[in-house]
């Protein structure tokens, strides 16, 4: 992301560049408008000047035409080179006036009319030359020609109205054009001022926004930096400077993130250490309590076992061999129970303990219930939790065969099949309905369909699962009035 930003930074326009460009644009526009304004003004003034020049030249023309006519008459009365020259000079001067007018009327639609004026003085000049020749030759029609020439002069002079009209009309048009131009210039000026004001407003707003908006966004992101939820990408697009600032902020926020993470990790660790220490303290306390309880417990069993041994010996010495045997078996069973309830035992110890239990229960139930143990001889003496088989047999006696009066049977079968040791405890009692069995399994052997608590079964299965984990599988088979069977299958491969 950082690299992308750095690459992106080269493509961005810097803030100063932006200001420079905006100003440059404004300068160009101002220069263009000003130069156009000046050029328009110059053009208008030139046009106006041209019109006045035309007017002056037209004045000059008619003055020189009159002068030409006067000089011609002077020459006729006093023929001399000087007078002829004066006549000719007047003619040339009037011609020059026409040329000037035509030059100043360049582009004017009515310029051609001044060519006609030139034609008139040319014709007058030619006719004047004819009159001079006629005078020299003393022709009869001299007078007629002279009168005609004078009439021609009058006709030329009469055109003054028409031509002044043209020039003044041109002046009028120029005046209208000047007024129009001035109006246009005023409008342009107004629009230009409005444009500049608008532009300045836009420029100011844009500049202020381009500075304040990213800063505001950065400010908004500052609080979120702590949570790592910030987003500087949009701000970084604004300009180069902001991009650099965002890069620095990104660095800073990353450092902050790292520090926050480090602090959190450290805090977690310290918490865990404290918890561990606390647990250790609890364990120490429990151990102490346990040791105390063991010491207390040791006192009572020893007293009980010594008492039972004393009763066994007394019974044996008195010849009550069966009672003596019962006492011994009970003593062994109690010792096993006390020693292995919360300890790890073995399969053979379990089998020995269940033999003692069965002996006692067989004496109790007589012909009502038979207890059969069938264990293969070369079974591996696998480790297993103590007091597993006894609760299962007890369960069968108490629940399955509770109402049996004869031929009840509890079968404990231990076999090895391939890599598995299978322990099966079954009875031929009342069994369990399939829905009740389903509920029992679903409730992890804790409760049946009638919410009856199967503590023995739950205790055994949970201890087996805790001890073996996935290595053990427990299967229960039962049908109503068809007995109950629990199979514990222990995987030896994983055990090894």
């Amino acid at each position, binding site marked *: 992301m950082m690299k992308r930003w750095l690459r992106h930074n080269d493509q961005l326009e810097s803030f100063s560049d932006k200001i420079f460009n905006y100003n440059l644009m404004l300068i160009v526009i101002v220069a263009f408008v000003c130069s156009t304004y000046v050029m328009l003004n110059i053009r208008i003034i030139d046009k106006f000047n041209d019109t006045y020049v035309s007017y002056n030249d037209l004045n000059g023309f008619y003055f020189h035409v009159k002068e030409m006519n006067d000089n011609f008459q002077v020459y006729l009365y006093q023929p001399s080179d000087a007078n002829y020259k004066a006549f000719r000079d007047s003619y040339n001067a009037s011609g020059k006036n026409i040329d000037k007018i035509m030059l100043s009327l360049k582009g004017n639609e009515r310029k*051609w009319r001044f060519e*006609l*004026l030139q*034609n*008139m003085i*040319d*014709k*007058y000049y030619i006719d004047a030359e004819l009159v001079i020749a006629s005078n020299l030759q003393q022709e009869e029609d001299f007078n007629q020609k002279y009168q005609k020439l004078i*009439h*021609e002069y009058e*006709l*030329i002079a*009469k*055109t003054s109205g028409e031509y002044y009209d043209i020039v003044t009309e041109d002046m009028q048009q120029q005046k209208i054009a000047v007024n129009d131009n001035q109006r246009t210039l005023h409008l342009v000026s107004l629009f230009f001022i409005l444009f500049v004001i608008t532009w300045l407003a836009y420029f100011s707003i844009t500049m202020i926004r381009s500075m304040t908006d990213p800063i505001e966004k950065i400010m908004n992101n500052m609080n979120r930096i702590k949570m790592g939820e910030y987003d500087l990408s949009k701000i970084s697009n604004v300009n180069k400077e902001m991009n650099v600032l965002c890069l620095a902020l990104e660095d800073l926020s990353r450092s902050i993130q790292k520090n926050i993470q480090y602090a959190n990790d450290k805090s977690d660790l310290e918490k865990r250490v404290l918890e561990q220490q606390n647990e250790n303290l609890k364990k120490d306390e429990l151990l102490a309590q346990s040791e105390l309880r063991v010491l207390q417990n040791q006192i009572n069993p020893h007293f009980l076992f010594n008492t039972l041994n004393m009763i066994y010996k007394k019974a044996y010495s008195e010849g009550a061999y069966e009672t003596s045997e019962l006492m011994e078996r009970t003593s062994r069973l109690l010792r096993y129970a006390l020693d292995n309830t919360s300890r790890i035992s073995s399969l053979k110890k379990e089998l020995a303990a269940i033999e003692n239990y069965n002996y006692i229960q067989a004496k109790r139930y007589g012909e009502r219930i038979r207890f059969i143990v069938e264990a293969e001889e070369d079974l591996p003496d696998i480790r297993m939790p103590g007091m597993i088989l006894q609760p299962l047999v007890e369960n069968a006696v108490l629940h399955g065969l509770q109402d049996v009066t004869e031929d009840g049977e509890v079968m404990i079968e231990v076999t090895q099949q391939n890599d598995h040791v299978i322990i099966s405890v079954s009875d031929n009692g009342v069994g369990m309905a399939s829905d009740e069995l389903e509920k029992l399994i679903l409730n992890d052997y804790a409760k049946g369909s009638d919410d009856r608590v199967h503590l023995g079964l739950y205790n055994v299965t949970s201890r087996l699962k805790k001890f073996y984990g996935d290595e053990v599988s427990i299967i229960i088979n039962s049908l109503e009035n068809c007995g109950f069977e629990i199979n514990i299958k222990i995987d030896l491969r994983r055990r090894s």
Partner: protein
Amino acid sequence: MKKAVLAASLMLLCGCQTMKKETEKPLYFVFATPLSTHTLWLQAKSGMQDACDLHHIQCDWQGPIKISTEQMEDVIQTAILKKADGIITQGVIKKTYIMESMEQNVPIVLVDSPVEDAKPLATICKDFEQQAQMLLTDIEKRIGKNEHLRIGIQVSEQDFDLAKQQIESVRTVFKKHPGGFEIVAISESKSDQSRSRNEWISVLQKEKNLNITLNFAGESAIGCVMAREYLNMQDDLLIYGVDDMDDTVKMIKEGKIAGSIVTSFYRYGYDSVEMLYEYVRNGKEPVKELQPAQILLLNKGNLKTYEKELKE
């Protein structure tokens, strides 16, 4: 952006100028009109302007407001001095000006009336005998061939060749009338409506048994109607006029004027420019000097169609 700047620079360098094609020097024609503001003659101006616009010819419409041949002649002389390429005028000026114009290589076309022996480039005008025949035919249709005609005539200026030729044509053509005729009065309107009316009042008071008036000036027929109404005369006087001024047309509609000989003044202006243009630009002379203008007798029957007929 760069393209725009480049385009702007090129425009500045080129000065935003458009290329102008070199063309022939435009021609300059002058119409020396007898009446520069008269409705009828303004139709001629319109025709001239249309033809000039068609051929890109510069033109001037100059002349007096009231009849003044001197002013017309000054216009013609000024046009000659200006070396105009052509002049159009009514044949009411002295023939010397026409001849001088032709001598100075400024061709001149006469309209509406001819000038005898002037030899202009062409003359576009009514055939006066045709005009007189049209009038006679209509008169005979109205009052019969055997009625003796006592005719009063009014022209603009009796000295004009135009007037002379028109009166002469009447004399020639009306001879055919079995009932016979006599021209009992000839008056002048001087192209003025009031004068025309007053002249007619004077004539009608003097000649009470007039049965026909022929008015060869545009305003004369109207003046005659006004005079008759002023004198409370009976309607047995047949009044004929020329031209189709609004009042004339209105009076024809009302039956106050029996008819009016009309021609297209627009075509005077248009056709004369065409003739001059063909002559000056292409050296093409008119087939014959006298070019008859189409004429019609405007009466109640053809009021709606005559303009179309004239243009055709």
